[in-house]
């Protein structure tokens, strides 16, 4: 159904101005799975994602898609394989849902080409997949946070890429919308085999939804593996500087992190 793509990072060093954010990073993104990148603020998660989608050129090292350097690929060719939903996407005032999702077809269109039936189909499929077809004629700025995020995901879907990168897709949503978005992404992954890489700030949601977790601390990989392997009390301490208890979440069977502060802590049984 979907072509298997390998996305890997070799010896990557990234930074802004004089600041180095990531140093000598090596990483492989497992194809066809859901990967979540977690870490404290400013540890480099967004920076890493932006570099993987070619928004930030590396100081050293390389980002490889199917063995080819991402930063050497033609822009549109990359955009047909790898889609990105950045952190605060901007919707032009008054744009309708159908229109915005339609923008996702750009990588497939030549300079003066007309809209084809295939384009319309792709847009329609994306709208249906995200249950936003009923919103098609509404203006994006009138929608709720969850709806808007679904529309952005629909736009990324219309790109028909095999890899989808999302930078904090749940950060400003309330919890029901967060679950809505994450469920949708899981559906996508299961139905089409889309490789998903997302930066999440909520450890527990990351552990519940991801197949593969990457914990970053100070620009380096601290732990990599399944949620059970990565989400441990030791990792939480190292990455967030926080003591915690890690239990099994009875609703999902995945690990769950309970932070321990200075107040209202019951002595362990």
């Amino acid at each position, binding site marked *: 159904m979907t072509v298997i793509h390998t996305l890997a990072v070799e010896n990557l060093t990234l930074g802004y101005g004089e600041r180095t954010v990531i140093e000598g990073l090596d990483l492989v993104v497992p194809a066809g799975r859901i990967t979540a990148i977690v870490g404290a603020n400013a540890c480099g998660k967004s920076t890493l994602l932006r570099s993987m989608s070619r928004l930030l050129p590396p100081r050293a090292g390389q980002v490889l898609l199917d063995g080819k350097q991402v930063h050497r690929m033609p822009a549109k060719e990359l955009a047909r394989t790898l889609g990105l*939903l950045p952190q605060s996407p901007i919707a032009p005032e008054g744009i309708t849902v159908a229109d915005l999702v339609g923008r996702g077809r*750009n990588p497939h269109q030549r300079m003066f080409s007309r809209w084809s039936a295939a384009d319309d189909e792709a847009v329609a499929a994306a709208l249906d997949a995200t*249950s936003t077809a009923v919103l098609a004629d509404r203006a994006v700025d009138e929608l709720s946070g969850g709806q808007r995020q679904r529309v952005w995901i629909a736009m990324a879907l219309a790109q028909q890429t095999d890899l989808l990168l999302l930078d904090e897709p749940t950060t400003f949503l309330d919890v029901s919308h967060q679950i809505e978005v994450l469920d949708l992404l899981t559906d996508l992954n299961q139905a089409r085999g889309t490789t998903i890489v997302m930066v999440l700030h909520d450890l527990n949601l990351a552990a519940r939804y991801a197949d593969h977790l990457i914990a970053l601390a100070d620009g380096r990989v601290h732990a990599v593996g399944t949620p059970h392997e990565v989400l441990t009390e030791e990792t939480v301490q190292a990455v967030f500087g926080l003591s915690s208890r890690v239990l099994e979440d009875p609703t999902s069977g995945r690990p769950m992190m309970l932070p321990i502060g200075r107040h209202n802590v019951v002595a362990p049984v």
Partner: protein
Amino acid sequence: MSLLATHPTGSTAQAVAESRARRRIRRRTVITVLALLIVAGYLVSLMVGQTNYSPADVLRVVFGQDVPGAGFTVGRLRLPRATLAVLAGLCFGLGGVTFQTMLRNPLASPDIIGISSGASAAAAFSIIVLGYGSTAVSIVAIVSGLVVALAIYALAYKGGVAGTRLILIGIGVAAMLDSMTAYVLSQAAEWDLQVAMRWLTGSLNGSSWTQTLPVFVALLVLAPVLLGQSRNLSMSQLGDDTASALGVRVERSRVIMIIAAVGLIAFATAAAGPIAFVAFLAGPIASRIVGPGVSLLVPAALVGALLVLVGDFAGQYAFGTRFPVGVVTGVLGAPYLIYLIIRTNRAGGSL
């Protein structure tokens, strides 16, 4: 409920195609109406004036026949003036909407961020102090416009260009250049009101074919470049990151668009001065009548042409005194401008 279950996409696809067709039709209709209005306005400016001429006379002059009386007034005075009005308006409209869309802010128009000021200062300088002829002035204007644009871009560049910073720096540069223009004008040998009006607010008085030709050439060369970037421009509305993710070479297309837009503005300014607010208003007005989500380049160009044409005509005959077109567009545009700012700020700011 799995949202990806087999679901007939036929109906949705149809709905999508239909809504897109509707928007396209609306845009086409607007463009046609605007074009017709421009043609009508053009003919009216040729026919009506201190002396009125019949359409037949006007057409005969246009086609090169010698008509006593009308030949001079229509052929030498009104024809170049009306033509320059349309051409300059097209340039201002195109240039203005490009900047406003690129910078995602209708208030970020070349006449506010210093491009027009640069072209105008250079043009005023080369005419008043250096005494250059029309072609040389145009060249100086476009070079200055580009230098200013480059300077603003470079000054705003700090690991990438934040639109905010660019706009603010543009305002500072505009202030500097405007004071230079004021100085050049004050040093002119005689206080020639005509000249001052042209370079301070824009005026079509005394337009000739030599002034009009460079603008025509600029439009012929640069307008297609901009129209070719139309899709990239639309994508850039979504933010640099998203546009890049959709396969747009953001920096490259930005440079192309800036050069083309600045070129258009500079050539038009060199011929007619910085006609107030046309570049500023053309885009937002076009956006209001065409609706969101479609390419505004052609509609804005046409709105610009219409604004200049009507403004100049009104300035000549509608009021007791003859006002240059810049004053008319300035005064009539001001309330709309303020309204626009209010609306933009209320909504959060994008075109």
